């Protein structure tokens, strides 16, 4: 048996064999022993866990606070919210709703809507992708695109969701959005939903915007590869709903080609109110519409219907068919509302030579008269159909609400501009007056007189 042991082992010195044997045993011990795990210092016992589970109490579902009476029990309207509306049983002159072109309660629109119900029923019972696309939707999209003289349009079933879905469809995590501080809430929500890097610049302040753009340009120079694929967007409104002033569009378009960003223009208020033929702020400033990448708007103001739209070049707008969340995953616009919007467009295009100059005139008159009041300040441009009126001294929400109540008792419906506390940059409280093109000068005088009396 000793012959089986090879020669080199037999001839090795004794100590060598001992060391080798020791190493072998040690390696075997290392392999087969239990692995070392440090004792968990804060390991909770079952009893501790049970105690934690029992102790934990959540906050109440609804925080305990005093709800504003005027919000929980608002004024109720019995009838169309037209120029004269029956508010809490009293026929009042209405300058609170966004009824700029007096389309609410229009006879022709109501007739067309009724015909539409008789043909299509009320709801569309499906999203656009699955048999919810009705031929009136396609017609409305084409009409809107033709109205703005661009390639294509797309409609959404709710004005709020339009811009809140359009922004995240293009701007993703890692992209940069430059937005004006004064943009309204729906745009702010769209920006949050996009998860992009947002830089707010002071309201209508071009220098502040340029400063931010220059900072970004410097940062880009350090990392040109990343800058090449990072999209940059500028989100602005044509006429700011919270301020009543116009944005300096020509300068922003000029900067677009210098700093290479794309412009998303929200024309909710300026659509069919600003411009010689109501084509919005691009007509007012004479900016060619191809330079604006996306124009979004709302049919809930001038057109007296419900919903929103986006128009622009085919390249940009077609993308929303697949990635606009409010478009793909929501039931489409009820056909009666699409038909109302088409009819409203018909009326506008037919009478555009009288409506818009008249609206401009009325806005200017209202602005003049409000400016002449002693205790109030008016903000915004004179041709804006939205006027924000504030008290010169002690401008608080409670005082403004009292003024609104007083005006209501005199059969004039005003409203305080409502904001939530989640607004990124809160505006000062104000009364928001929306000019209806059909108001007579006597009615404007009435409103102004009531405001004057209310302060006393």
């Amino acid at each position: 048996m000793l012959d089986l042991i090879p020669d080199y082992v037999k001839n090795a010195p004794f100590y060598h064999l001992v060391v080798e044997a020791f190493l072998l045993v040690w390696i075997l011990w290392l392999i087969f022993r239990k692995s070392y795990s440090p004792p968990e210092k804060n390991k909770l016992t079952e009893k501790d866990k049970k105690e934690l589970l029992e102790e934990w109490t959540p906050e109440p579902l609804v925080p305990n606070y005093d709800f504003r009476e005027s919000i929980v029990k608002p004024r109720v309207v019995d009838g169309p919210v037209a120029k004269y509306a029956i508010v809490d049983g009293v026929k009042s002159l209405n300058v609170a709703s966004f009824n700029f072109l007096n389309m609410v309660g229009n006879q022709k629109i109501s007739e067309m809507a009724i015909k539409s119900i008789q043909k299509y029923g009320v709801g569309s019972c499906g999203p656009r992708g699955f048999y919810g696309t009705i031929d009136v939707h396609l017609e409305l999209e084409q009409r809107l695109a033709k109205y703005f003289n661009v390639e294509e349009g797309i409609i959404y079933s709710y004005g709020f969701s339009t811009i809140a879905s359009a922004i995240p469809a293009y701007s993703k995590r890692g992209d940069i959005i430059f937005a004006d501080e004064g943009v309204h809430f729906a745009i702010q929500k769209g920006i949050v939903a996009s998860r992009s890097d947002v830089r707010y610049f002071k309201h209508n302040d071009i220098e502040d915007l340029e400063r931010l753009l220059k900072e970004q340009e410097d940062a880009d120079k350090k990392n040109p590869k990343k800058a090449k694929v990072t999209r940059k967007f500028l989100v602005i409104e044509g006429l700011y709903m919270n301020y009543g002033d116009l944005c300096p569009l020509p300068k922003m378009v000029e900067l677009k080609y210098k700093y290479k960003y794309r412009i998303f223009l929200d024309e909710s208020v300026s659509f069919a109110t600003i411009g010689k033929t109501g084509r919005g702020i691009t007509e007012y400033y004479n900016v060619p519409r191809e330079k604006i990448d996306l124009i979004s708007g709302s049919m809930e103001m001038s057109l007296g219907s419900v919903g929103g739209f986006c128009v622009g070049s085919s390249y940009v707008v077609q993308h929303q068919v697949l990635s606009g969340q409010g478009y793909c995953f929501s039931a489409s616009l009820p056909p009666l509302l699409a038909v109302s919007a088409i009819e409203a467009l018909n009326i506008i295009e037919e009478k555009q030579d009288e409506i818009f100059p008249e609206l401009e005139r009325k806005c200017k008159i209202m602005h003049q008269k409000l400016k002449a009041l002693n205790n109030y300040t008016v903000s915004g441009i004179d041709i804006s159909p939205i006027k924000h009126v504030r008290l010169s001294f002690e401008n608080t929400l409670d005082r403004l609400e009292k003024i609104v109540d007083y005006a209501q008792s005199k059969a004039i419906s005003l409203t305080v501009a409502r904001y939530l506390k989640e607004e990124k940059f809160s505006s000062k409280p104000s009364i928001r007056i929306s000019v209806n093109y059909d108001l007579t000068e006597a009615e404007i005088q009435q409103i102004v007189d009531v405001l004057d009396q209310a302060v006393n």
Partner: protein
Amino acid sequence: MTYDKLLASNEDQGTESIRLPNGLANSEKQTTFLHKRNHSRNLSTSSLKFKNTLKKKSIQHELYESPSRLQVFYTHLCYTILEVFGHIREFMRKWGLEQRKGAVDNNTEDFAPLFNSYESFHTRNVYVRNRDCFNRPICSVPGAEIELVERKSDDYNWTFYYTGEKIKVLNMGSYNYLGFAENNGPSSRCAIKSIEDFGVSSCSSRQELGTLRCHLELEELLARFIGVEAALVTGMGFATNALSIPAVIEKDCLILSDELNHVSLILGARLSGATIRVFKHNNVQDLESKLKKAIIDGHPLTRRPWKKIFIIVEGVYSMEGTITPLPEIIALKKKYKAYLYLDEAHSIGAVGPTGRGVVEHYGCDPRDVDVLMGTFSKSFGAAGGYVAGPQNLINHLKNSSHSHCYATSMSAPVCMQTKKTLEIIMGLDGTKEGQRRIKQLAENTRYFRDKLKKMGFVVYGNSGSPIVPAMLYMPPKVAFFNRLMLERKIAVVTVGFPATPLAGGRVRFCLSAAHTREMLDRALQAIDECGHLNGIKISKLNPPRTFQQVLEMENLQKNNSKFHK
């Protein structure tokens, strides 16, 4: 005993091979393992998963057959072929060998590209090929039968033109569960009257001057219907979720959301700023373990305890046809003091003996659910959504919901249509029309599902849900099945990736109370032929049969049972 007779006799008892989840006792019917007795087909329990949700009288089960490995292989093969060809075509387009179709950016080259390169690759090479199956325009009321506007394409779906013709088809794709999408019923007459009374829109938000009398009436009626204190309506269902969730849930809260929740719920959860954790679809054990872990560990960074924990589930899931296990979830929420948000978009009006949704289906108390939400665009044939719950919740939402403060209020004709429909469902109009429709829907659901399963299709979902998905798996079948059905004058909805998982292409039938027995038979006959041509009768529960064979088999059973009596 042949396989068919065995299956028939077991189906009568309502048991199949089931593995019951812990905690649910089933003393009456013991688990019987089919595959141990009769070996004509090899049924392995690993590829069949059943979940039993205990209802008072009968057992409703949910089906989920995971795809066989061969199907998954073929699906991946299809996608690989599509990608290879896509790359070849992209190459050819880049070098001008093929004409570049589709629109181009009108900005200069040095602007950052607007679209992600993979997204547009997928759109150009996969989506465009079956674009004719989606966004089909209709020109009639979306009832049981609709008229499609015929559109054709000369260049493989890059552009469409309309021939001016209309095609009348049977509609199995619209969400018209109770058949209220009509243009001449009492609801539409009410809607027409309301246009004369209120106009089309209010152009103002609810907090300002947009609250119309009809809104308050609808909210009151709705609260009565559901059995809670108060309700709040919004103009759009998607917006109801996206804009009400952030009002109720804040930053330091935790949301436990089901895997397959709708995009609006996910968007609302993201906008609220809370931490979101996902639990496996309808898996109560996973939810419980995540709940426990969340309470014990607290916030991952600050280690502080969570302010509130919300569980967000849907009543009926629209892609799967499954129903959430509500009683178990309510028990969990009570045990761990969490809050429950239930989205009944597809289930209100369609599920439950009187149409009160999933809560009634299980016999639960609506006050146990903290926030009930639903939409009117499905069963009510209108548009919009609602949130219902205790009075202080609704007051809080009136103060801080985004839609209440900024968005235009619900259009008056839509509101009145909903109100009239609700009255019909509740029986307040003096007729039994509402009950009849609910019964008809339940009957149609039972009939259709039964026949489809017996034909050998892989059908998912709960037997009580009016949404019936049947699996197609592969992307070419998604288009092929759709086109074949259209040739037979039936409009169906087929979906593939990315709306479903990669190997989850399916056809989703939406049943309606407006469908008559003849319509369903016509549809089943067409589905039978198309299914055979597509090779999708691959269920392990039933061998492939034609529709005629299924009818003969049932006749035989009926005669046999008469004979035995």
